[in-house]
């Protein structure tokens, strides 16, 4: 790519997250060079604003994530009326905690019980409840999970080291529209004395997708 004098300023904000230097054009991989050229062009054309790009990255890399969903789950564990509202209509209940927005406009929260375990997938692309879980991990977007979650959910759970009793039936939620799904996992045993913040620390991302269970109090220390 040509050495544009202003390119470093275009991508120059975020280097410290990578631990290596992108400033030398000669070290750019083909895809890095391609993306840098595209960004440079779209800014020059006036279609995108650098400050908006940086704000989007900051938001989804550092602000929005599964800590949000963990707060929702912990609240549901301690507050039965909130839990009822959450299961009846997810979006407004989640908004009570100041959580919501893009990718979570139409939230559906499904509850695990001893009889039913829920598992969320998007077989067609990568639909995921962004406001509560952040951006999805690579495995959620990759073919192995998308292919197998609907056909062999118990096998997928085994890949995550999760073995459910044979008496627990599995419901798989394929996110084929803008309704987005979050699992409300069962509250772990031995957590009676814990406050909401301590409970939230037990709630893992995977437990809200259905590929895991919450931690036990001993695990989270």
């Amino acid at each position, binding site marked *: 790519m040509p050495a544009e004098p202003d390119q470093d300023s275009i991508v120059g904000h975020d280097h410290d997250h990578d631990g290596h230097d992108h400033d030398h054009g000669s070290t750019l991989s083909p895809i*890095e060079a391609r993306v840098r050229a595209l960004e440079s062009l*779209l800014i020059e054309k006036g279609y995108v604003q650098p400050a908006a790009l940086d704000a989007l990255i900051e938001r989804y890399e550092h602000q929005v994530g599964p800590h949000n969903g963990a707060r929702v789950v912990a609240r549901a564990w301690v507050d039965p009326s909130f839990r009822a509202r959450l299961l009846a209509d997810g979006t407004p209940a989640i908004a009570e905690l100041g959580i919501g927005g893009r990718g979570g406009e139409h939230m559906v929260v499904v509850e695990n019980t001893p009889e039913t375990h829920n598992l969320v997938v998007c077989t067609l692309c990568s639909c995921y409840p962004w406001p509560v879980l952040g951006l999805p991990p690579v495995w959620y977007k*990759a073919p192995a999970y998308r292919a197998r979650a609907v056909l062999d959910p118990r096998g997928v759970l085994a890949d995550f080291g999760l073995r459910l009793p044979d008496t627990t039936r599995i419901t798989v939620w394929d996110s084929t529209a803008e*309704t987005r799904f979050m699992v409300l996992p069962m509250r772990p045993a031995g957590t009676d004395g814990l406050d909401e913040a301590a409970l939230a620390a037990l709630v893992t991302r995977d437990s809200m997708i259905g590929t895991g269970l919450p931690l036990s109090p001993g695990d989270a220390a």
Partner: protein
Amino acid sequence: MNGAQDLGGAHGFGPVEAEANEPVFHAEWERRVFALAMAMGFTKTWTLDASRAARESLPPVEYLSSSYYEIWLRALETQLAEHGLASPEEMRSGTSRVPPGPVARVLQGDEVAPLFDRGFPSDRPPAAPARFAVGDRIIARNRHPLGHTRLPRFVRGRPGIIERVHGAFVFPEAAAEGRDAPPQWLYTAAFAAEDLWGESADPGGRVTIAAFESYLEPSR
């Protein structure tokens, strides 16, 4: 379309491999592609459904051999060219050769938090009463459109039951093509795993999809 994106039930992809302590992005270029795609989506030049259609229109071999953000990048480049906002030559060089095309709006830095906190709801006032109610028995239509669809292959022609009624929503098949169409009622349709997978089903299991009304017909 019956493309490589419609993965439900496919064999041969191996075990699910989760990365411990996975970062949100794995390279700087992934951050930039994510932000560029989101910001360009905000220009209203195309819909979210059109972006999904562009991604799944990659040739199957390329779709399956590309990383997630490579797919996003290729689709973004295709959409920019198709809408006349940037030529392939300009994208290669990184330098504008012709004046920019029109865009409806440009996302500003201080708009990101308020707009993305609010989100972009896709429910709409219904154009007609709902055809189905909770508990109705349905069959997912057996259809194979060439364009974008949100009806996965693994449920087509299979019997199920209406479990929830979500309201009326933008219909992705029309939105992907920039066509106006009435909003459609959206349902949770639940299928017994055995009706989908026969003897390979997880015993007692169920699979649900979010099904637009035109994807369903009453079961007789």
